């Protein structure tokens, strides 16, 4: 219900909002969370638990909430598994429970069987594989929370890089204070202050009602921070609604900022990011992440309306709502009294049950008693009463032994039971410092006896902790602690050599000074004492796990699924560790924690990906001629990041028809191709020749300027990694071409050799792939066309020979013309500055019409080269082929003084085995049958002895041709082998083939000179 006295300044009562939850319409106000608005509307049940399908209420007020999971909105803004406590209310919001508490639930129906289904149940059942495969899908349908989304996301996400000297994580009293201290005590340091809530202040707002000075401090500090933020050349960024969720190496922290939960956001017509990831690199981190309260343990502690004490307090103070009228507060520290006092101030009279016996009371306890609050000291709750929601509690007197004879018997409980009625129970078992982030990247925790919790390790390079995460409970001490830590931070930045730490007051351990954390075995051995509410892990599950030998805390976690939920065990895990310690009879410090990993709170996949999806997933590379290919109707093939024309279908041609036409044009008259994507590396320096000799297998010392040469490149394993033609511009200048896909890796490999091994060589490399455009003019009429296009070069065969190049002017553009061929036809490659590419292409096309010049794509290129037996590295070789394997011994220089890359490996035994896969040609006996690529050649025993790497129908030969890797293939020329087609879709059959040379067409190389 909403409280009558409105004290919150976070709720804007002038802005009522309407929303729908589980198909019912409710009212709330701006400033509400979905949770607070539902509490205001007296909603009790929010969802069901994972394993047993138990109806659950809300227990928390923030990201620690394990129960109240909802699905938000529908369609392209449907969001699964939102915690009602983290959803800010907006008008028209629509949500449903992730697992409906009001409908019939199978898991809940089989309640009598729950006793047979403890932790580890499934490891012991359905052991027969067949049985398991049948039941598994049934079981799956019971699991999970929200349904998965069914439509594409309508929103966008973004990443932003940030840099700071100091990153303050947490905008509560400690964070605010330390940020301000750093800013005001230094001139140049940039500060980023991050907080998960919409407003700064954290838990301090809870103090306002009872402590005027807190409100004053807050206002003043906030104003001063805002001044810093808003000044010119501001050094402060405040990121609110922003959660630091991961801390990576070298002080790199990722922060997820949420702009809204479900609303569409556009600004001036531009769609704004729903969420932003701030990627922050900082020199120093000040960790002021606060603490989460943990619940007390007792039987059926999972009933609805059993909440965390501090959450109840926050709901009262921030949202003016409370979930009950007859309220009992139960715990082991002073926070229960603070909440009680706040309730009294709203005319609700609670009862307080303190497990601590009387004596040594703090001011807060005395104050509460003075206000007339009924305080029952030295009692513990045994059990919550009620079916699905709490109606009362059973309590018994407890005794602590000051010096227990043995660690585990410090508690005693009397057998007498009293019953108290209530409709809301708020508990506090102490506070867990939020150490998660600090542990993502190597930080350790230690167990602190005072607070019975794990604290961040004291000293860590470039990091300070202050406030509640440092177990400072009293807000004024948090300020002192924060200022001290700010000084240390500045000192670490060498800004300030003087450190004058102030002392903390004797109230500093407020909330954190608890000795009575543990619960007696009488309670822990009862059923239904829940540790992890989301996954229904009970104390008995932990006990069972330990008795079965799963004793490591990681085993316990994994066996029981404790902490696996969307809350990652923020409230439950420490209790679980305490319970495990109890059953293991060893101290909590030895039991230790499970590993803290990112993300602190969930991060949308969309946010993780940011803009790098769709077109931006990977760069797309287009040649300068690309638009012309599009106009020509090309289909494209992606090679590396490049979009290369695959074939150019005309008038509804199939691919085969188009390729057939293109190939014939090249063989019979003239074709043209965009070869700009081949990698090009400019190599200059006095030792350029020596360098080429080292990285290629063949000789380069005598290649004359004006000439080109094909080279084959291996790695040190002796395997082919790339090939291409290099051109000698002059004695100190070469241009290497690489395969399209291999360009980047070849370039970096060459740089690696040069820089790490051969830095004494005078060689300089530049990648010039993008700087040049290459149009290949290919076919018997190529010379005629070139003569038309270029007047200042002598194209006569004897003057411009195969494997030579000439500088010239093509259509008025300076060009390097290479006479090289990947098809066996007469061919020239016109290289110009890239920006002229489209112009040259269009001119070539126009001038070539008299020979019916035909653009062709990669598919025809593949056919044409296969006819000539030229390999494609990566298709006919696979990283395990040597030059000898592809029958290219001729390219291995014998007398180079330097042992070129890969050469030494050629002599090791396996590379000389007789049964290596070797590249050969295959001619099907049925000339019309085209072998499927990837089909295997089998021995007479039916095992694979090779496979088809390339296979085409050759228009020139009017028959099928194929290249294959065949074991010992080079000694099997002319033999018949069987290719076995084993896929039904391809038609099961055995295809007899003749092993042939891999050169099929123009075997004697007579065509290379074109038409005379």
């Amino acid at each position, binding site marked *: 219900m909403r409280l009558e006295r409105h004290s919150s300044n976070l709720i804007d009562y002038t802005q009522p909002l309407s929303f729908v939850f589980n198909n019912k319409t409710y009212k709330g106000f701006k400033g509400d969370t979905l949770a607070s608005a539902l509490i205001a509307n007296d909603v009790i049940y929010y969802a069901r638990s994972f394993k047993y399908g138990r109806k659950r209420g809300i227990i928390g007020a923030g990201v620690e909430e394990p129960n109240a999971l909802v699905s938000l909105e529908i369609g392209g803004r*449907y969001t699964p598994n939102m915690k009602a406590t983290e959803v800010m209310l907006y008008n028209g919001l629509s949500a449903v429970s992730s697992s409906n508490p009001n409908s019939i639930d199978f898991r809940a129906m089989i309640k009598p069987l729950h006793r047979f289904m403890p932790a580890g149940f499934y490891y012991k059942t359905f052991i027969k594989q067949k049985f398991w495969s049948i039941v598994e899908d049934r079981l799956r349908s019971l699991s999970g929370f929200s349904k998965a989304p069914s439509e594409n996301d309508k929103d966008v996400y973004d990443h932003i890089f940030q840099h700071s000297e100091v990153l303050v994580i947490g905008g509560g009293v400690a964070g605010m204070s330390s940020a301000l201290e750093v800013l005001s005590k230094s001139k140049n340091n940039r500060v980023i202050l991050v907080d998960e809530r919409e407003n700064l202040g954290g838990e301090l707002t809870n103090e306002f009602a009872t402590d005027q000075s807190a409100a004053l401090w807050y206002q003043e500090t906030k104003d001063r921070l805002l001044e810093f933020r808003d000044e010119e050349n501001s050094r402060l960024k405040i990121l609110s609604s922003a959660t630091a969720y991961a801390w990576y190496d070298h002080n790199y922290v990722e922060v997820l900022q949420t702009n809204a939960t479900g609303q569409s956001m556009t600004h001036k017509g531009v769609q704004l990011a729903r969420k932003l990831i701030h990627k922050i690199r900082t020199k120093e981190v000040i960790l002021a992440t606060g603490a989460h309260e943990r619940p007390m343990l007792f039987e059926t502690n999972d009933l609805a309306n059993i909440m965390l004490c501090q959450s109840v307090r926050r709901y009262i103070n921030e949202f003016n709502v409370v979930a009950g009228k007859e309220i009992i507060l139960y715990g082991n520290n002073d926070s229960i009294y603070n909440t009680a006092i706040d309730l009294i101030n709203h005319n609700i009279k609670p009862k307080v049950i303190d497990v601590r016996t009387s004596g040594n009371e703090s001011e807060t306890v005395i104050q509460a008693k003075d206000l007339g609050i009924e305080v029952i000291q030295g009692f513990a709750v045994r059990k919550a009463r009620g079916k699905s929601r709490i109606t009362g509690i059973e309590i018994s007197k407890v005794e602590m032994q000051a010096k227990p004879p043995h660690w585990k018997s410090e508690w005693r409980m009397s057998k007498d039971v009293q019953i108290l009625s209530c409709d809301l129970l708020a508990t506090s078992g102490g506070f867990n410092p939020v150490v998660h982030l600090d542990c993502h990247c190597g930080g350790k925790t230690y167990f602190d006896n005072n607070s019975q919790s794990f604290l961040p390790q004291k000293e860590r390079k470039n990091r300070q902790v202050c406030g509640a995460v440092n177990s400072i409970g009293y807000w004024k001490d948090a300020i002192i602690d924060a200022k001290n830590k700010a000084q240390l931070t500045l000192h670490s930045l060498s800004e300030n050599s003087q450190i004058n730490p102030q002392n903390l007051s004797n109230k500093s351990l407020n909330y954190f000074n608890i000795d009575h954390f543990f619960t007696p075995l009488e309670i822990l051995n009862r059923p239904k004492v829940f540790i992890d509410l989301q996954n229904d892990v009970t104390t008995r599950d932990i006990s069972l796990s330990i008795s079965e030998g799963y004793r490591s805390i990681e085993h316990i976690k*994994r066996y029981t699924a404790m902490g696996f939920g969307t809350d990652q065990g923020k409230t439950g895990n420490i209790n679980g560790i305490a319970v495990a310690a109890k059953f293991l009879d060893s101290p909590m410090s030895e039991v230790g924690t499970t590993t803290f990993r990112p993300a602190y709170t969930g991060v949308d996949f969309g946010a993780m990906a940011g803009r790098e999806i769709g077109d931006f997933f990977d760069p797309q590379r287009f040649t300068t001629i690309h638009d012309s290919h599009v106009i020509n109707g090309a289909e494209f093939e992606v090679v590396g990041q490049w979009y290369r024309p695959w074939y150019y279908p005309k008038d509804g041609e199939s691919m085969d028809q188009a390729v057939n036409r293109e190939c014939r044009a090249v063989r019979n008259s003239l074709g043209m191709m965009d070869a700009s994507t081949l990698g090009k590396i400019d190599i200059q320096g006095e030792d350029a020749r020596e360098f080429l000799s080292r990285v290629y297998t063949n000789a380069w010392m005598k290649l004359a300027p004006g000439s080109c040469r094909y080279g084959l490149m291996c790695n040190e*394993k002796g395997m082919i990694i790339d090939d291409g033609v290099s051109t000698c511009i002059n004695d100190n200048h070469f241009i290497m071409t690489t395969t399209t896909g291999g360009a980047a890796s070849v370039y970096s490999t060459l740089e690696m050799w040069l820089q790490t091994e051969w830095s004494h060589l005078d060689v300089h490399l530049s990648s010039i792939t993008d700087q040049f455009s290459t149009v290949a003019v290919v076919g018997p009429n190529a010379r005629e066309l070139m003569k038309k296009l270029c007047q200042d070069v002598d194209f006569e065969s004897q003057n411009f020979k195969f494997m030579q190049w000439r500088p010239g002017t093509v259509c008025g553009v300076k060009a390097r013309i290479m006479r090289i061929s990947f098809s066996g036809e007469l061919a020239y490659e016109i290289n110009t500055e890239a920006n002229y590419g489209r112009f040259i292409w269009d001119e070539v096309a126009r001038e070539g019409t008299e020979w019916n010049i035909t653009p062709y794509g990669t598919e025809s290129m593949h056919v044409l080269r296969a006819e000539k037996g030229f390999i494609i590295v990566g298709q006919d070789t696979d990283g395990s082929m040597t030059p000898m394997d592809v029958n290219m011994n001729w390219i291995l220089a014998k007398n180079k003084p330097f042992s070129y890359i890969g050469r030494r490996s050629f002599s090791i035994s396996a590379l000389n085995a007789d049964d290596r896969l070797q590249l050969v040609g295959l001619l099907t006996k049925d000339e019309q049958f085209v072998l499927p690529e990837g*089909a295997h050649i089998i021995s007479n025993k039916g095992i694979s002895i090779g496979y088809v790497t390339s296979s085409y129908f050759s228009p020139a030969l009017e028959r099928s041709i194929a290249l294959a890797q065949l074991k010992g293939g080079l000694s099997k020329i002319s033999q018949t082998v069987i290719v076995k087609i084993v896929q039904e*879709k391809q038609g099961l059959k055995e295809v007899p083939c003749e092993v042939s040379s891999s050169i099929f067409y123009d075997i004697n190389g007579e065509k290379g000179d074109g038409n005379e």
Partner: protein
Amino acid sequence: MQKKYSWYSLLKAGLANQDWDKAIPSSKPKSKYDVIIIGGGGHGLATAYYLAKECGITNVAVVEKGYIGGGNTGRNTTIIRSNYLRDEASSLYEHSMRLWEGLSEDLNFNVMFSQRGVYNLGHTLQDMRDIERRVNANVLNGVDAVVVDHKEIKEQIPIINTSKNVRYPIMGASFQARAGVARHDGVAWGFTRAASHLGVDIIQNCEVIDIEVEGGRVKGVKTTQGDIMADRVGCVSAGHSSVIARMAGLRLPVESHPLQAFVSEAMKPILHTVVMSNAVHGYVSQSDKGDLVIGAGIDGYNSYAQRGSAKIVEHCAAAILELFPIFSRVRMNRQWGGIVDVCPDACPVISPTKIEGLYFNCGWGTGGFKATPGSGNVFAHTIAQDKQHDLAVPFHIDRFTTGALIDEHGAAGVAH
């Protein structure tokens, strides 16, 4: 005698306060064993189990520096398949697959092996050529495999994006129906329980700090729980193989790298199979709990810390969204890293060493989990007979000297 898991025992235990025997015993080391296995991960535990079960060697200790199954066994994406390219690899993985198919019964422990099939997607023409080659090789080797086109993929996985207008359109895939996933912790626990039932000592929190070698023969190990003697020592310490090797004065052809994975929050079942894409760098399945289990790529630098770079994980999320755009508003719940030992040919070493009695099983890279039973099985025989199991022969460490590499990533398309 250990209590058998059965409906009867479950019923009895349910009525009698869940009284069970220890599945994981807490043993202290004896001073001498026939065989010591270093490393209480899946492979080490499986080795011990098969030593006891199939080789008659029960005087075996598994020494684990932390808790069993705490390394890569308990932090992988649990994909199991055997559709490898090379005969040597596919034979080994298929051997493993057959063991998986009877493993729960064999161990009397449900490891939740779930044969929901694995798709390896192809996005380019060369991907498809590689897939054809691999599938055909698989069929010839008796490994179930088919090539499916993008339409068939869409029919089986309606939520996948098969649009042609994406950066890397899905052209097709290989599909192995018998492939799937298993519950990783269950595998470690199942082997532990079964092995210790046969007499194997499982010793946790026992770190090996040195290996005793005398005259070229292994004598035993020094540990944080004292010296333990044995004539035969099998090292199965993925992530730390080089460290253990150095104790015996050996070098290995492996490097340790971080490999990352993450899970989403649990949702109702939506993805019923396993989808892997090497081209876009991501693989995903949905666990029985409902969370998406997603594997990312490997970091290029050496590391022994169980964490990697944010960029790798973020790129992987982008890759998953390329395949499944509807997951954009699904949240990553938890992310972690493991250390994988990578061999230059992406295949493991299962081998004797220069030191008599010292054997190594390492270098599984990103793909070790699926091999767990098979690896343990052939390694057990290799140790027991002091002679490599037939299926392990190609994985001898000498292949790096002779050049007889089994180059899986050469053409496999998928090296995971």
